[in-house]
C-alpha cells in the first residue's frame, strides 16, 4: 500500500502514527507547503512571547520522519488532486505523485476581512510559524508602539497575550459584543475582559473596522463602524479561520464548511480521506456534522484516518470541541455546547471567590457543555462525563460542589479509575 498525506501538522502526523500502528511496510509520502519540520501551531504565540524555544516548537522529535519511514516533500504545494489517475500534482517541483490512499490534512487558512485586502507593510497574519517569524523581525525592526489585533477570539487573545508579554501596547478590536464569543458566555467573557484590562489591554466591542487610515508606514489608524478612529502602527489579523481546501479536486469532493467525512474519515471519493481543520466530521456533542477546528480533534481524526487507510476498520464516535486557554495567568476552559442557551438547556453555575466562574450546561440529565474560568482543575471530570453521556441525575445536587469528585459517581465509573 502507498499513502500520500498532504499537510505536516497535527492531523497529518496523527495520520502517519495511525498508519504505522497497522502497516509498518507501506510507503508514506508527506507533502507540505511549509518548509519546517512538523511544529505545533498553537505554540506560535508562546514562541513570540519567548516562552518556548524554536526547537521546542517541534511537534515530534527530529527523527520522526526517519523513524516512521516517511518521505517528505517540504516547501511543496499540492495544486490539484486527480482521483481518476490517483495522483496529486506538486508545485514548484511540478511532479505528479500517485497514491493508493490519500489523506488531506491541509488544515485551515485565516480569513482576511475585505477591508484588509491589500498590501500593507505593517499588516500581519497570526496563523503559522512563518507569520510569527516575520512578525518577530518586524517588531524588532519597526518597534511599533500600538498594536491593534483584529479579533477577540482564541487566536486574537493568544496574540494579545504574547504582545503584552513583549511589553507592547495592545488594542483588541472585536466585532461581536464580547470576547471569545464562539466558546464563551457573557459572564465568563466579562471576567476575561476584566482580567485583560487589568493587564493593560484596550478593547473595542461591537464595532467592526469599516475603513483604514493609511500612511507611509502602512496602516496608521482603524476607522470603526461608529467612526471612532483607533490609532495604531501595526495590525495583527486574527479574524477567524476556514477550511483550506487544496485548490482543485477533479470530480469535486463533497464539502459544506469543510470536506465532508464519514466516521472513518472517508470523503465522498473512495480512497481519499480528510482530517483536521479542513474536514467536517461528526461533532459528538452537537450530534451533527460540523467543523471542530481544534488540535485534539485533528489528532483524533488523523489517527482514525490513518488506521482506516491502512485497513483497520476503526470508527470514530465523533469529536468534542474543547479548549484550555491560559491568558496572562487566568485559566479558561470550555467544552462541548458551551454557548448553548436554548429552552431545554439548563445552566448550572457558580461564581467567585475572585475571578472564578464555573458553568455546566445541562439537558435531560446530561452535561452538554461547560465553561470554567479561574479554577479549571476539575473540568476534566465533567468533560469525561460528557464524553460518556453519563446520566447525572443521581449526583446532580453535588455537581460543582467544591468536593465534587469520584466519590459521587456511580460504581462503574469508580471501578474504571481504581
Amino acid at each position: 500500500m502507498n499513502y500520500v498525506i498532504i499537510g505536516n501538522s497535527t492531523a497529518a502526523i496523527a495520520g502517519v502514527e495511525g498508519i504505522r500502528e497497522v502497516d509498518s511496510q507501506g510507503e508514506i509520502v508527506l507533502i507540505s507547503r511549509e518548509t519546517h519540520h512538523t511544529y505545533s501551531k498553537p505554540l506560535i504565540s508562546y514562541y513570540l512571547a519567548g516562552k518556548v524555544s524554536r526547537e521546542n516548537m517541534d511537534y515530534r522529535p527530529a527523527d520522526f520522519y526517519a523513524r516512521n519511514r516517511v518521505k517528505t516533500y517540504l516547501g511543496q504545494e499540492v495544486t490539484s488532486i486527480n482521483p481518476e489517475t490517483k495522483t496529486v500534482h506538486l508545485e514548484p517541483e511540478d511532479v505528479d505523485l500517485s497514491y493508493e490512499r490519500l489523506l488531506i490534512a491541509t488544515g485551515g487558512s485565516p480569513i482576511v476581512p475585505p477591508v484588509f485586502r491589500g498590501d500593507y507593510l505593517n499588516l500581519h497574519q497570526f496563523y503559522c510559524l512563518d507569520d510569527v517569524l516575520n512578525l518577530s523581525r518586524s517588531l524588532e525592526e519597526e518597534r511599533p508602539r500600538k498594536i491593534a489585533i483584529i479579533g477577540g477570539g482564541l487566536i486574537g487573545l493568544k496574540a494579545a497575550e504574547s504582545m503584552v508579554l513583549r511589553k507592547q501596547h495592545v488594542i483588541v478590536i472585536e466585532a461581536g459584543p464580547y470576547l471569545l464569543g464562539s466558546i464563551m458566555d457573557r459572564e465568563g467573557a466579562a471576567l476575561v475582559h476584566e482580567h485583560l484590562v487589568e493587564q493593560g489591554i484596550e478593547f473595542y466591542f461591537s464595532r467592526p473596522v469599516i475603513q483604514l487610515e493609511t500612511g507611509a508606514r502602512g496602516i496608521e489608524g482603524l476607522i470603526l463602524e461608529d467612526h471612532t478612529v483607533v490609532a495604531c502602527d501595526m495590525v495583527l489579523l486574527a479574524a477567524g479561520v476556514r477550511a483550506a481546501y487544496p485548490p482543485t479536486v477533479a470530480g469535486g469532493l463533497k464539502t459544506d464548511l469543510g470536506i465532508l467525512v464519514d466516521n472513518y474519515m472517508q470523503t465522498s471519493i473512495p480512497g481519499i480521506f480528510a482530517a483536521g481543520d479542513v474536514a467536517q466530521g461528526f461533532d459528538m456533542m452537537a450530534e451533527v456534522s460540523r467543523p471542530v477546528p481544534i488540535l485534539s480533534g485533528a489528532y483524533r481524526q488523523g489517527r482514525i484516518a490513518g488506521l482506516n487507510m491502512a485497513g483497520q476498520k476503526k470508527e470514530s464516535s465523533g469529536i468534542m470541541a474543547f479548549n484550555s486557554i491560559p491568558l496572562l495567568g487566568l485559566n479558561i476552559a470550555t467544552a462541548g455546547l458551551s454557548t448553548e442557551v436554548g429552552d431545554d438547556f439548563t445552566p448550572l453555575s457558580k461564581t467567585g471567590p475572585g475571578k472564578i466562574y464555573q458553568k455546566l450546561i445541562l439537558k435531560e440529565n446530561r452535561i452538554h457543555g461547560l465553561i470554567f474560568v479561574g479554577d479549571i482543575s476539575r473540568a476534566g471530570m465533567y468533560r469525561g462525563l460528557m464524553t460518556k453521556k453519563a446520566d447525572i441525575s443521581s449526583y446532580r445536587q453535588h455537581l460543582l460542589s467544591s468536593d465534587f469528585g469520584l466519590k459521587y459517581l456511580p460504581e462503574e465509573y469508580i471501578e474504571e479509575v481504581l
Partner: protein
Amino acid sequence: MKKVVAIKEYCVACGLCEVYCATVHSRYPDSVLKAFKLSPQKPVSRVFLEKSEQWSGGIQCRHCKDAPCIAACITGAMYRNRDGIVLLDEERCVQCSTCVIACPYGLIKESDMGGRKVLLKCDLCYQLAESPTCVTYCPNEALIWVEEGETL
C-alpha cells in the same frame, strides 16, 4: 503493561501514597523529612487519595490506551514511552492545561512551584527498578502493581 490498581476494600485512607509520591518526585527522593523540610516548595504528589463515606483509594493516571491527553497536547510534550507509560516532558510543556481538561478522571493537576506553574502526572516511577513508590509504601497493600486485566 503493568498498572497500579487501588483495592478500595483495603485502602486505609492514610495518605502515605501521597507523602511518598511527593517525596520521590522531590529534590530529596530518599528522605521524607528532607523533602518536606528543605524543598523550597511543598512537594506535590501525583497520586491522589480519593475518599468517600463508602470507600477510599489512591488513584493516578490510568495510562489509557487511547489517551485523550496525548491527543490533546498542543506541544507533543505528552507522549507514550516504549513501555506504554504516558509521560509528560516537563521541559517541553507550556502549561496550557489542555491535558487537564482532556483527562476524563481529572488526574493531571496543575501545581504552583513558587510562582511557576507546572503540570504533574503519574510517571509510574519508571526510572526506578522496583515497583512505583506508592505501591512500595502502601502500608496495607491496597495499591498493587499488576499486569493489566490481572486480578488478585
